[in-house]
């Protein structure tokens, strides 16, 4: 598998949608068949380009949700109200359709099973998508590395890949902790409220354990989590961040 594309080779290609899976009321996964796919690393993304009849183009980046070991390339798209691209991808696109894709892209927010140290993933909302690729890569390669996911969502129904995360939590070396910020079911024993400094103190490994930390979510979520981690004594150079916002719509 070619890991890095050759210099200058990042061409748009047509990907055929082979399956769509509704994940939550807002998020939908698209499984793509990409004939010229060089393979990807967990955490990378693709750009998608839509062209209207009059030639107007809109382009957005979407994280890859599938592991390098998986068949096909899966994207999970969160529908943003009033967005130019995401409502088309979640509401209009059907299996058999073709969409323009370029990728894989990204060399910073990536995790490989050969890396040492406990792996700490912190995500908000659809920030779970690149984490899901890392978690599946971890499960497939199964390195001797502990992994912990701290995920924040508005309600349990908003947790993308909820069933898969619960199955993953059954591994001894994996730990999944969900924070619900708005609504929680009766008897909810997980965290209530945002992922804050206090929650991170109890849930993150100490800096001396040299965790590799990845934070992905809306900009405000990422800034708050990264600042709280540093206040708690984590070394900034061990924290990798990826922000998204309305421009991702």
């Amino acid at each position, binding site marked *: 598998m070619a890991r890095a594309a050759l210099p200058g080779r990042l061409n748009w290609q047509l990907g055929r949608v082979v399956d769509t899976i509704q994940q939550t009321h807002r998020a939908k996964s698209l499984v793509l068949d990409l004939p010229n796919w060089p393979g990807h690393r967990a955490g990378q993304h693709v750009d998608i380009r839509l062209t209207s009849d009059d030639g107007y183009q809109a382009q957005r980046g979407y994280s890859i949700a599938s592991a390098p070991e998986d068949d096909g390339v899966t994207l999970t798209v969160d529908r943003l109200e009033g967005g130019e691209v995401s409502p088309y991808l979640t509401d209009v696109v059907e299996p058999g359709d073709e969409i323009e894709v370029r990728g894989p*892209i990204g060399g910073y927010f990536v995790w490989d099973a050969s890396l040492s140290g406990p792996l700490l993933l912190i995500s908000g909302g659809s920030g779970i998508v690149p984490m899901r690729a890392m978690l599946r890569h971890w499960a497939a390669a199964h390195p001797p590395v502990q992994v912990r996911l701290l995920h924040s969502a508005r309600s349990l129904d908003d947790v993308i890949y909820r069933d898969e995360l619960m199955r993953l939590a059954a591994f001894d070396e994996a730990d999944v902790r969900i924070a619900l910020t708005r609504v929680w079911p009766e008897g909810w024993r997980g965290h209530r409220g945002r992922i804050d400094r206090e929650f991170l103190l109890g849930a993150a490994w100490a800096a001396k354990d040299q965790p590799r930390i990845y934070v992905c979510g809306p900009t405000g979520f990422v800034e708050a989590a990264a600042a709280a981690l540093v206040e708690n004594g984590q070394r900034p150079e061990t924290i990798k961040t990826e922000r998204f916002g309305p421009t991702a719509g």
Partner: protein
Amino acid sequence: MTYLLDGNAIAGDLFAAFGREMTDVVGKCRNCGTASVVAELCVYARAPGAVARCPICDAVVMVVVTIGGECHVHLPALELQEPA
């Protein structure tokens, strides 16, 4: 409206312009001297193009504009270091 993102958001355009992955490349701000990886730059992507600022001193270090399908990158204050 502008909204703060980071260098990951312009990774595709930068790859297309430079012919290689750029988010893990270190760039030194010519205004304050801070070295950051491109992924950590503050990016405002809702302008007609994208503007990247130094995360420490806020200087505009990079401007990315796509015209007619071609991506143009201007580096007013970023010294890109050769990848290791």
